[in-house]
């Protein structure tokens, strides 16, 4: 990490752009994607959950988040907190061929996005104060440790777990954390999904797609063939995901749906995320196809069967496609794309085993700790709004605003 290297202005330019693209995924991407899917009376609160989560995590990231996640590892468990508040990190410090400060900022947008994504599961019923405390606890106790284990020199990284841009750290983490929080929060009185402005969601999905290319492409940290390959396979997996979801919709209900199309698009992007820098185009087609199948099953059958109220399917899409993508990385990782890794199909079955361990650890850790945080908050401050507020709508009650005064 600390190796002295020459700054590459090409790499630096690309990662600066990629950082800004990742920001586009949260604000406006996730905000519009989720905002459009909620009821009219909750649209502002839904967008607010994303805005406030992003902002809180961004501040925490520079105070102690980056330092603990990426500081020199203490037994592979956690980073040692030096350079708190970024003191001692000068603009001249280097991380590979880009400035350390840029790497910190790039990682900031990842942490903040992951927190913002959780909000989709809990819309329409959570107290703002409880969400704020949850997010602070979540980034500190869940995101930072998992990020350290997988990316910051921790034990999963040393084990050889592959996660190019965030299958475990971002998507499994947000999906499973969201599921645990939604379970503690309970189901809404009116839990059927009736998007009040699906056009917003199409816009949000488009911003997510757009930004995601920075998310996956930027994770190469260099401006070269690897970033280009990551972007190409991301586009392919996303488009295959969209097409496959439309096909399943057509087979099951006779018509393709627009919501299905954008859901398949996101599922494909989620699944390709951990694999983006390791797999070739044929593998990305299989990954996109698998993502839509897995998430379709989760959203249509698993959710109904188990009865949890994951309002906007954060677990179904991010959690389940994240798990598929992380495992698929262990199957399809090709040494011809990235010499650092080879998977099951290239004669390294052990890699799949390592991926299984990384997935299980992320799922269990995120679920258990998120559940404990939610329970503690529920017993102390209460996490759910009053029934009257839920029925009348959160916008007027929690913000004294309404989304539409046309």
């Amino acid at each position, binding site marked *: 990490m600390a190796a002295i290297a020459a700054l590459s202005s090409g790499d630096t330019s690309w990662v600066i752009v990629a950082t800004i693209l990742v920001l586009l995924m949260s604000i406006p991407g996730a905000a519009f994607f989720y905002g459009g899917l909620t009821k009219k009376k909750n649209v502002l609160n839904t967008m607010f959950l994303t805005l406030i989560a992003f902002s809180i995590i961004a501040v925490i990231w520079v105070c102690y988040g980056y330092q603990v996640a990426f500081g020199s590892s203490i037994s592979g468990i956690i980073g040692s907190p030096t350079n708190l508040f970024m003191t001692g990190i000068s603009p001249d410090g280097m991380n590979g061929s880009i400035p350390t400060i840029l790497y910190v900022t790039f990682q900031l947008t990842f942490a903040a996005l992951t927190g913002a994504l959780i909000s989709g599961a809990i819309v329409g019923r959570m107290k703002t104060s409880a969400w704020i405390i949850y997010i602070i606890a979540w980034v500190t106790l869940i995101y930072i440790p998992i990020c350290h284990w997988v990316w910051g020199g921790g034990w999963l990284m040393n084990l050889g777990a592959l996660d190019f841009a965030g299958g475990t750290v971002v998507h499994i983490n947000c999906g499973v954390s969201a599921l645990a929080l939604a379970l503690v929060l309970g189901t809404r009185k009116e839990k*059927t999904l009736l*998007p009040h402005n699906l056009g917003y969601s199409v816009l949000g999905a488009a911003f997510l797609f757009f930004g995601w290319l920075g998310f996956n492409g930027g994770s190469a940290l260099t401006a070269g063939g690897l970033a280009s390959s990551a972007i190409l396979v991301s586009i392919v997996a996303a488009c295959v995901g969209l097409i496959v979801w439309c096909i399943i919709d057509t087979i099951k209900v006779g018509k393709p749906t627009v919501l299905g199309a954008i859901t398949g698009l996101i599922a494909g992007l989620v699944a390709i995320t951990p694999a983006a820098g390791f797999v070739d185009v044929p593998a990305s087609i299989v990954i996109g196809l698998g993502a839509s199948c897995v998430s379709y099953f989760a959203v249509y059958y698993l959710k109904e069967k188990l009865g949890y109220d994951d309002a906007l*399917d954060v677990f179904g899409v991010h959690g389940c496609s994240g798990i598929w993508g992380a495992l698929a990385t262990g199957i399809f990782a090709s040494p011809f794309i990235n010499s650092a890794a080879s998977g099951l199909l290239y004669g390294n079955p052990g890699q799949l085993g390592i991926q299984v361990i990384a997935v299980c650890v992320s799922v269990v850790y995120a679920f258990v700790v998120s559940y404990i945080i939610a329970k503690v908050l529920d017993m102390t401050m209460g996490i759910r709004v009053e029934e009257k507020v839920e029925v009348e709508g959160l916008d007027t009650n929690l913000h004294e605003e309404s989304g539409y005064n046309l």
Partner: protein
Amino acid sequence: MKRIIAVIRGEKLEEVKKALIAVGCDGMNISEIKGRGRQLGIRESYRGSKYCIDLIPKSRVELIVKDEDVDEVSQAVIEAARTGDVGDGKIFISPIDNVIRIRTGEKGDDAV
């Protein structure tokens, strides 16, 4: 004088307006309403959650016309709004006691 209220398909509103202007009926009030008649609901589904939208958006055109114009105006609305399928809407006709133009104070047929 009569009041004609026509509840029609929203997508037929422009044609109905043109037809009314063609028969010399320039004044009208239009509102967007939701309602139901014999046409059953529209089905929608989002990620597997199914809904029946049982109140359907319609356009409501309100006209005040002289007694002798009622048949011609009604016929114009019918011709412009009809598709032949269930859901074309209905026309309601009722008497009006008086009409007053606020600017001039004219009353009755002169104010229509």
